[in-house]
């Protein structure tokens, strides 16, 4: 009897130990499978960019291209549109938008999170309200306004609606709210000015959020299509999204060229992101150590 009892007592602990690893592996598997499924359209896009137009039309479907090194689509894309220039323009615009967003959003986030002043909630609501306005309905008046400022076809004009991100204000406010008030009060007792507190206490504590905002705002600005379309007329100022859309026209979509152009537009982002990811992780780990 006792031997059975001890066996039963012993088994549950082992079972818990097994199922812990089990669970961890299952989670890893699920995450990995999800990632692969999410990544699949990109693989498909890349593979298609190596096919000629007749190959794409082929039925039944053929996954691999006839010639894996068929770069004719890429050559054609660069011939038709000056994509290198577009990449440069997009990079400049997106970088300015990202940096400006971080600066203004973190300032505003701090103000909204840790201060009380008359009209605070109304101002916050007004800023969030901007997000609720359909851009299509303000585009024409906005264009006239930017034109009056003489900023058409300039980097300033392209980036103008993008300089501050509502999402950024949101995110920074949430992130800064989580900072315990004791830290701030301690700094105040030490005699620091409000701005000093911002630079020395707040900013270091929200590094992950800043990194997140930088990346997200950069990408969001990079992928803007409608406003650049309306505000840019000069061929040298075009951005990547406009170049991409020139392969989808009134009558048909040139999938072979579109996918090649899409790969070209993503490649720099991929590179930036992979490099930045390491930096993000570092920042996160370091702030975690500070506790």
């Amino acid at each position, binding site marked *: 009897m006792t031997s059975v009892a001890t066996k039963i007592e012993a088994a549950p602990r082992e079972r818990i130990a097994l199922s812990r690893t089990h669970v961890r592996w299952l989670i890893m598997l699920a995450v990995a499978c999800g990632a692969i499924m999410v990544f699949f*359209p990109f693989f498909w896009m890349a593979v298609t960019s190596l096919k000629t137009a007749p190959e794409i039309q082929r039925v039944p479907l053929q996954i691999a291209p006839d010639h894996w090194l068929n770069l004719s689509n890429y050559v054609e894309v660069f011939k038709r549109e000056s994509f290198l220039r577009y990449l440069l323009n997009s990079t400049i615009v997106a970088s300015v938008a990202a940096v400006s967003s971080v600066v203004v959003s973190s300032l505003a986030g701090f*103000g909204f999170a840790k201060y009380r*002043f008359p009209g605070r909630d109304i101002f916050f609501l007004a800023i969030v309200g*901007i997000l*609720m306005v359909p851009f299509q309905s303000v585009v024409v008046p906005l264009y006239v306004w930017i034109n009056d400022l003489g900023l058409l076809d300039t980097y300033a004009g392209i980036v103008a609606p993008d300089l501050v991100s509502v999402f950024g204000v*949101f995110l920074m406010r949430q992130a800064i709210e989580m900072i*315990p008030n004791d830290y701030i009060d301690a700094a105040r007792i030490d005699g620091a000015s409000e701005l000093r507190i911002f630079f020395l206490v707040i900013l270091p504590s929200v590094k992950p959020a800043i990194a997140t905002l930088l990346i997200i705002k950069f990408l969001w600005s990079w992928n803007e299509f409608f406003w650049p379309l309306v505000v840019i007329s000069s061929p040298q100022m075009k951005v990547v999204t406009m170049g991409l859309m020139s392969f989808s026209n009134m009558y048909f979509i040139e999938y072979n060229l579109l996918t090649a152009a899409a790969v070209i537009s993503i490649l720099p982002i991929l590179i930036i*992101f992979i490099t930045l990811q390491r930096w993000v992780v570092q920042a996160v780990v370091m702030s975690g150590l500070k506790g």
Partner: protein
Amino acid sequence: MRQWLHIAFPRNYLDRRKRAGFLFVLPALLFFGSVYLLPLAQSIMYSFYKIAPGGAKQFVGLRLYEKVLTDSTFWTAVGNTVQLLLFSVPVTVVLALAVALGLNRVTNLKWRNLWASMYFLPFATSLVAAALIWQWIYDPVYGFLNYALSFVGIPPQKWLQSLSQVLPSLAVVSVWVRIGFDTMIFLAALQSIPAEYYEAANMDGASGFQRLRYITLPLLNAQIVMVCILELIFNFKIFDQVYATTQGGPAGASQTIIGLLYDTAFKFFRFGDASVMAVFVFVTLMVATLLQWRLFRKPVEY
């Protein structure tokens, strides 16, 4: 009014604190005021005018509001948009949360970065490019999806061509694009939950599920609310993906509010009507956001 005077001319330390707070938000306010305020006011003004052929404007008061809000096409578009929402928003938030929790558990940094980048990549494509690629995957004849399904014996589906499947198919595209973004937000938040909380819970013998329910989710409450609000706004204003692929078809089954707004403004040249729709969108989203905020925001004690 008196309060503003005190901000401008602070009497004491507290007033100076208030002024500092105001100054911190001033740049953002200035920006929105200078860039968006004028165009916004103008577009609201348009909702009270009718543009006659030739370009002349004609004041018509609330007549356009009556016209748009009693138009069945408009309400069909609203219905379609809401249906899209009801699919995209919960699925995106839940999946993003699940993925973030899963990624948080992965201890090997290299793998975690790799998977995280893969989830995030769709956000790096423009909405239009993403939609076009998905449209092709969805193609009834030579799209990959039907091809894959044929291996498990499912007959080819019409996806974007089918009256019943078009909305869920479009919703999948939205989920695909947005999931990485929300995962990043959740992951960043999860990373900043101090380990002590979990250690304390473990000492009390809490199960994984209990940890999730009583520690993780409440601490993530702020982010979850924020993500829900953002996803609601984003999906309510859905336009690029639909316009690039189905253009509201087939037979109006995928016409969304903003799609209708765009057509009304730029293809039918009825700016007044379009501005009415814009006001509708704004008011609806404002109300929905306020509701979500009041109902779901819980203060968290540290």
